C-alpha cells in the first residue's frame, strides 16, 4: 500500500473524533466483538509478517516460561527491534496452552528481561496488547502478580529506547497496562481498552455476569473514545470489515504506522523522550476543581483533549 493511502485513511479516522464519548450501545458492542474475534490476528501473526527474521526468547530466568506472553527480537526495517505481545490461542488446545493470554508474574518478568536486552542494544520496543486481564490464581499471587505488573510499568517508564504500545485486540485491566507504558500508545480501529473486561465489570458492578453487554456499553472502551480521552495517541485503521478479514492488510497498515512513528521517536534525544513519556502519563485523567472555600459552583471537565501528545 502506498504511504499516501495510509495517510489519507488516518486523516479520515481522526477527523470524526473529538467531543463527548460515543454512547451508541450497538456500535460499542460490535467493536468489542470484533476486538475478540476468533480469527483476529495475534502477535505472532503480525510478527511473521513484519519481521520474518525473528528470534523468540523464552523464560523469565527464574522459574519458567509463561506462554501467555511472547517476546523476542527481530530485524525490522534494517534494525533490531524487540517485540513483546500477549498471545491468545487459535483453537481450544492452544487457548489453554496460552492461558487465554492471561499471564502470571512470570510473563511480565520475561517481558522485563527482554526489555533490558532492548535497552542494552538500543533497540526500540514494540508491545502488542491483547488480554482479558492478568491471571487470577493462587500461585500468581504468591509469586507477586501485583509487584510484577507494577515493576513492568516502572521498567517501561525508564527505558531509554523508543517504545510503542499497540492495543491490537482487547486491552483489559492492569494486565494490559503492564505492557502499556510507552512513548506512543495506539489502538487498532476495532480494539478496546478498559479498566476491566465486560464480564468482570458485570460481576462486580451489576453482580450478574450475564450483564456483560450492559457493562461494555457503560465503559465505552472503543479506540475512538480512548483517543478522545488522551489514552490513545492514534487510531490505526484496519482492513474494511475488521483485521480478521485480511491479516496481510492489517499487518501492512500497522507497519505503516510503526515505521513512521519509530522514525519520529528516534529523532528525539533519549532523555527528552523519557521525560515526554512520563509527562504523557502524568496528564491523563479528568477531575473537577472546586473554588477554595464556600459552596462549590461549576467546574469544567476536561474530556481528555489536553492529554494528547
Amino acid at each position: 500500500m502506498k504511504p499516501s493511502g495510509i495517510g489519507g485513511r488516518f486523516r479520515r479516522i481522526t477527523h470524526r473524533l473529538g467531543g463527548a464519548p460515543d454512547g451508541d450501545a450497538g456500535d460499542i458492542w460490535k467493536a468489542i466483538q470484533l476486538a475478540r474475534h476468533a480469527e483476529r490476528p495475534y502477535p505472532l501473526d503480525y510478527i511473521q509478517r513484519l519481521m520474518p527474521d525473528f528470534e523468540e526468547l523464552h523464560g523469565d530466568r527464574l522459574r519458567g516460561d509463561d506462554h501467555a506472553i511472547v517476546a523476542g527480537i527481530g530485524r525490522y526495517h534494517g534494525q533490531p527491534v524487540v517485540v513483546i505481545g500477549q498471545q491468545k490461542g487459535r483453537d481450544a488446545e492452544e487457548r489453554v496452552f496460552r492461558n487465554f493470554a492471561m499471564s502470571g508474574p512470570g510473563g511480565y518478568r520475561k517481558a522485563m528481561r527482554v526489555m533490558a536486552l532492548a535497552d542494552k542494544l538500543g533497540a526500540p520496543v514494540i508491545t502488542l496488547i491483547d488480554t482479558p486481564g492478568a491471571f487470577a490464581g493462587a500461585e500468581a499471587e504468591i509469586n507477586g502478580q501485583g509487584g510484577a505488573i507494577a515493576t513492568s510499568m516502572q521498567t517501561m517508564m525508564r527505558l531509554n529506547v523508543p517504545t510503542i504500545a499497540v492495543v491490537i485486540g482487547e486491552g483489559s485491566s492492569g494486565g494490559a497496562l503492564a505492557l502499556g507504558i510507552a512513548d506512543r500508545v495506539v489502538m487498532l480501529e476495532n480494539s478496546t481498552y478498559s479498566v476491566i473486561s465486560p464480564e468482570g465489570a458485570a460481576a462486580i458492578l451489576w453482580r450478574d455476569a450475564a450483564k456483560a453487554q450492559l457493562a461494555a456499553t457503560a465503559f465505552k472502551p472503543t479506540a475512538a473514545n480512548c483517543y478522545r480521552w488522551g489514552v490513545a495517541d492514534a487510531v490505526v485503521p484496519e482492513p474494511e470489515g475488521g483485521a480478521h478479514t485480511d491479516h496481510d492488510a492489517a499487518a501492512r497498515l500497522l507497519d505503516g504506522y510503526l515505521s513512521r512513528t519509530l522514525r519520529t521517536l528516534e529523532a528525539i534525544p533519549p532523555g527528552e523522550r523519557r521525560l515526554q513519556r512520563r509527562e504523557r502519563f502524568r496528564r491523563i485523567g479528568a477531575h473537577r476543581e472546586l473554588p477554595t472555600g464556600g459552596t462549590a459552583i461549576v467546574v469544567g471537565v476536561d474530556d481528555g483533549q489536553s492529554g494528547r501528545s
Partner: protein
Amino acid sequence: MARRQIQVSIDRLRGHRDTPTPRAQKLPSDDRACPKCSSHYRSEEMRRNLNVCPACGHHFAVGGRERLQQLSDDGVYDELWTELRAADPLRFVDLQPYPKRVEAAEAKGASEALVCADARIGGRPCVIAVMDFAFLGGSMGSVVGEKFARACERAAERRVPFITVTASGGARMQEGVLALMQMAKTIVGFEALADAGVPSIVVLAHPTTGGVWASFSSIGDVTYAEPGALIAFSGPRVIEQTTREKLPDDFGMAERQLENGHVDAVVDRRQLAGRLARLMGILELPEAPPGSLALQLAQNGTERAARVAQALPHLSRRLRDRISRGDHPGGEGGRP
C-alpha cells in the same frame, strides 16, 4: 476542547445522611462488636485504642483523616488539595449514576478516597497520602491519581519522606480506562521520588487489592502491613471462582505475604507511628552539598532537575547512536 459543566452543591450534600449498614442497625449507634472475638466496645473506647480491639488485636478500618490524626504529632496535620473532586468523564451509569455515588460518598465527610497532608511524625516532617476505604471502597480514580502524584512531587521537592497508607479495592470502575491510567500516574509520582533520592514508605492496610496493589503499593522502598490486612491483585473470592481452588483462610493476609516476600514487616497499628518515626530517622537524608543535583532540585522543582539528570547520559548515547548509524547506512532511509 470539549468542556462539560457539572453542578454540585456541597451545602446540599452535607445534608445527606449516611446509609447505615445492616450490621450497624443491629447495634446501638455508639457500640461496636469485634467480628473476631465478639467483644463489645463503646466507639469512644475503640477510638482511643486506634480502632484496634483491646481484647484480641483485631484491626478495624480507619478513615483517611482519622488515620492522619493517629499518625501526626499531636494529631495536627495540614490537609492538601481538598478542592480536587471526581468528575464523570464517561457519564457512567451502573446500578446508579456515578455522580450520585460520589455525592453519597462526599456526604459522609471525606472529599475523595485519598487524603494528603503535610505532617510530622516523631518530630520528623513528611508528606502523607492516606486512602479512605469508606469513600467508594478507596477506589483509585483521577482525583486519587492526581493527588498521589502531587504528594510524591511535593515530598521530592521538599526532600522529606513520602508515606502512604493504602486501603482500596483497586481502580475506580466508574471512571473506566481513565481510572486504569491512574496506576501509571502513581508510577510517575514514584519516579519523582526516585530522581530526588527521597524514600517511599508504604503501609498496607486492609484491604489493598487490584490496581492499587499492582501499582505503587507493591514497589515502595519499605513496606509495612497491618495485621490481618488482605493484600492481593485478585482477591480470594475471585480466584476461587476462576480456578475452583479452595484457598486457605489466611490467603493473601499480611502475615502470609510477609512469608511470601512481599512485605518487610507486619506492624501493629498501636506501634505504627513509632515505627515510622524510627524508620524516618534511619532514612534521614543528609544536607544536600552545594551545587549538587539535589540542591538544584530544591530550588527549581523536580522536573527541571529530572531534565538535567536525564540530559547527562545523552552525550555518550548520542555519540554511540552516531557510530551505530554509521554501521548501518541506508537502514533508516527516511530518517529526518
